[in-house]
């Protein structure tokens, strides 16, 4: 009698454990340690394509990193600089143009599904035609690199000092979906600060302080 109950409990326990573990195994990490975190984004934006293939400079979109503590996810209108016209992949557009030529009509704009969300955030149906009474709303990106609240990290300071973006963010230009490349642990920061003070950053001598209050205040 008792044995059977115990086995029942054990089975439930086992099942439950398995469920919990299984659910957590893909997101396994030590507390506060998010290395390798790579959440799915609302728009499958490819850094590999933009930063890698098309070799767009990081700071072209993340210009905020030059002046502010936040690198800042670019606002939608930054995307629109190009995507006002680039509404779909090259092949598709090319095809449509040829077709249009053949049929002697002006090409109609083809909008890829991926980009629809982008235009939606600006409340636009057709990127070329502005919408006067538009109600723009933010795209809800998922934050990848997230430091604890008691750490004050200033992008502009590091960018002006000449630290390459890849030093902390890894080879983003090769990532289809952004992933936290480094551990971003305190030890990791301190190590870099010490090395930079000793060897300078690409030849230029720098003073990267190791005072606590530089990051913690």
């Amino acid at each position, binding site marked *: *009698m008792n044995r059977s109950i115990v086995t029942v409990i054990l089975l439930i326990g086992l099942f*439950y454990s398995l469920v919990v573990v299984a659910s957590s195994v893909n997101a396994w990490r030590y507390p506060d340690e998010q290395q390798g975190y790579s959440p799915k984004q609302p728009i499958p934006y490819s850094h590999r394509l933009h930063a890698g293939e098309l070799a767009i400079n990081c700071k072209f979109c993340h210009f905020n990193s030059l002046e502010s503590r936040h690198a800042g996810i670019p*606002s939608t209108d930054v995307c629109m600089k190009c995507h006002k016209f680039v509404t779909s992949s090259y092949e598709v557009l090319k095809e449509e143009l040829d077709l249009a030529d053949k049929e002697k009509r002006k090409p109609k704009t083809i909008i890829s599904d991926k980009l629809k969300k982008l235009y939606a955030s600006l409340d636009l149906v057709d990127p070329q035609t502005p919408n006067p009474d538009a109600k723009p709303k933010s795209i*809800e990106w*998922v934050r990848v690199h997230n430091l604890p609240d008691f750490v004050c990290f200033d992008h502009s300071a590091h960018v002006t000092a000449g630290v390459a973006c890849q030093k902390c963010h890894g080879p983003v230009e090769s990532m289809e979906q952004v992933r936290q490349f480094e551990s971003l642990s305190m030890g990791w920061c301190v190590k870099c600060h010490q090395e930079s003070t000793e060897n300078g950053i690409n030849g230029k001598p720098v003073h990267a302080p190791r005072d606590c*209050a530089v990051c*913690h205040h």
Partner: protein
Amino acid sequence: MINEANKPESLHQANESGPPMDNATIPEKELFQLNRRRFLEAAGFTFSAVALSGCTRPDPELALPFAQLPEGVRPGRKLTYASSCVDFPSGCGMLVSVRDGRPLKMEGMPEHPLSKGGLNAIAQALPLGLYDSHRLKTPQKRGEQAEWEDVDDAILKTLASIKDSGGAVRVVTPTVTGPTLKESINTFLKQFKDGSHITFDAVSHSAILDAHEKTHGARVLPHYLLAKAKVIVSFGADFLGTWISPVEFTADWRTNRVPTEDDPQMSYHVQFEGRVSLTGGKADRRYRLAPDEFGTVLNHLYALLSEKAGRKVDASKLGESPIAEADLSTLAERLWNAKGESILLCDSQTVAVQVVVNAINHLLGNYGKTLDINKPSLQAQGNDREVLKLIDELKAGKIAALFVAGTDLTHNLPEHDQLAEAISKVRLVVSLNEREDDFTSLAHYACPDHHLLESWLDAEPVCGLVCLSQPLLQPLGNTRSILESFALWSGNKSTAYEIIRTSWEKNILTRSKSKSFRKFWDQSVHDGFVQVSAEAPKVSEFKADAVVLAPQAKSGEYCLSLYTKVGLTDSRHAHNPWLQEMPDPITKVTWDNYVSLSPATAEKLGVSDGDVVAVEAGDANIELPALVQRGQHDRVIAIALAYGVKGTDRFAKIGPQWLESRLTVAEGELVGKNAAPLIDVANGSLSLTRGDVAIARTDKRHELARTQEYHSMELPRNVAPHGGEYRDVVESTTLAAFKDDPEAGMHEKHFDTSVQLWPEDHPKKGHHWGMSIDLNLCTGCSACVVACQSENNVPVVGKDEVRRQREMHWMRIDRYIDGDDDDIQVSYQPMMCQHCDNAPCETVCPVLATTHSSEGLNEQVYNRCVGTRYCANNCPYKVRRFNWFNYAHEDSLVNLALNPDVTVRARGVMEKCSMCIQRIEEGKIDAKRRGVQVADGDIQTACQQSCPARAITFGDMNDSNSEVHKTEDNPRRYGVLEEFNFRQSVSYLRVVRNRDEQHSGKDGHGEHEDHEHSEVTPSNSNNIVNLDEKRTSETGGKHV
């Protein structure tokens, strides 16, 4: 701290889903049958998984970029806008720093001609007023929420009928200096046959204007130019604290208060006053004088001066002077020698007295020199006669419509009930106040105005200087600018922006030289103020015949003196916890008003601090705790106004709630009691002083919350070694001594701090931040305290915690009162972390949570701190503050006021002044970005920035031409407890009192030892009594 929070959360979730599963499958009966161990085994196994789940990631955090980035906005960067603090007629210039669309910090505007970069505590506290969930968010119709349309329709309908019937319409506001607002009120009133705008100042200076009407033929308030005054004589005018335009006056007063080695000159400041005011504390010579005796003394002074001027005054009419004749004649002498460079200020509601004041100022030829009446000040236009007339009209039911904006009429006037009853007779009562205050609750309609930071407004504090205030965020509620409201009721549907622009184009531009309005406007908005030609009423020559001697002092046993506190000059700010918890500069009491009595009077009544006394004046009476205040006149009973404000019971549960905690506000009570009922309306003015007052003790007690328990630098005699010890942590000297020897008054224990044990180990290359505070300039106004609180997210802890000596202010102002009661010397000392290079606190921290930076700062790392409190024990200055609880941060609206650059400290963590490290880092990074060196003055700490007296200097001590470096060889420089060689980075400049005797306050004790016993000892022992009572009441306090 955030990610610490995550783990328990995920555990919690798991637990929720854990047990039910088991219970669900096993009927309880059987559950108990099987033996415990096996069950626990199983259960343990079940929950083992939960531990693992603790290692999973918290829910993903979203990042929302702008869809369209506004022009010039950079997320995470601070933007600064020029505005001005038009909530107060004094109209200080503000620079508001806005971060990601949130106005966070008010800063002084250095270019502003009046405030010159200073800002008072109340302006510093504006953000909390803005993000206040208790502000009226929508219009109201008889207390019910309503839509603007309905309210406006209703109001307009009634107004229309009033128009026809020709009923009287009154708009009551405090002093309005803004040309635009004035205009729109007037245009509104023009619609009616009998419409007038009544200016009501709770603390009015009506008498000054009336007096000038008598003597100069125009109802003007002179613009006092203290910068030009070498001799300042003030009769009860608290011009550094609360009187007319304190920030401006402080800035001016400062200019003549910095004696240097080469030019040891100082203005001479004499204060005659009943209660101890902040200004009295700074006076070189302070006389105790009951307010109702000002007249007599002024008569004498007038007589003495006119004698010098060659005119004899009949001495028989003068009456008996309470001040020694000799003192007065020397004072007259000094005044006479400083003709045209002297100034006489008087805070009296009696016109006759003010007339004598004008006469004296005229005799001294101060008009046109230190008093400007051609470009007069507009900072106080209150007219008591009109207010009293209004009251009569109301009572007579002659008023058809009453509009009140910016003041709680019924709260600030006596005879509340009759007034309320009278108001109920009015057909249309509209309140434009921001909150549900006493008057609003009587009004038919509430049409809440925007908060200052949400609205377009302008101000003209002094003729010819027009200031602009611009909105810094979208209104948080469905409120409406007062400009729009009046415009709309005058049939004009334009927005505040349009209204102000048109009015400026019409009125202000014409007074300026510039042609293009666009340029003029943009420039004005950018600067926040503009100087244009003055349009002032014509003043006549001085009418000598108007001068009659002031009436004799009426001799009641006591003299009531109502005043407002530095932090709470106006009932509108009673809802601001920062201001409520800001210790009063003199009494150091928070969260309460009280009856302050002189030690002698207290002894006579047999009361001590916290004993409730009943004060009766006319037919009004009020019960408040007593507070024994050294240096107060024995006849004077001082009570602060602007307390007992409706709705302040909201603070009952502010601060931590636990086993032994007591409410900040007792059930069904308010913060303090309203003293307005005691205002005397007898002699045609709203007089804040009256003689017909009685006081009696009750057997109740009401524990006051003071941040300082012991008030003198002289140690209690019963425990002081050698029968008496004087700890001159605030060093002082006299000007006479200073002239002979700039080092005079120096603490004998000073020694050469260049001696170091391990000089090589910690070289301070690069920056070495340091601060220097000129105690001669510090007025104790506490603007820095609130500035620091706002900059550094310092929590409000509530009355009970303050009572337990657990206030969290990083910056406090120590106040010591020494000397004889007839001539007390008050010393203020801003005290914050001294950032010692040999810091005792650092050595003792086991986990390296507090260390020393390479730039000489004492760093506190909150996230490393485990809270042993050893550092606080070992801190000689007791400037470290411990988070005894998790202080409330659940009000998401108030949290908008939090500075994102500063960590919000969790429970169990030590904190303290960081010298605004976030500003230092920002400054350094900015410089790096611009590729330049950090220049002196680029980085300013919050306290330094706000200081109206510019007493605080901060900078790099290694930078040989920085201000702070220069102070190092200032002869007045000293460090507190320097003899311990903590090597503080904060130094102080010695107080110099403009007195002729050679000894500073401290030697004074040494000298007349004999009468010192009679004078000082009672008040000292008195302090000890207080301490002991503190203890007993702490223990017995629970059932109070």
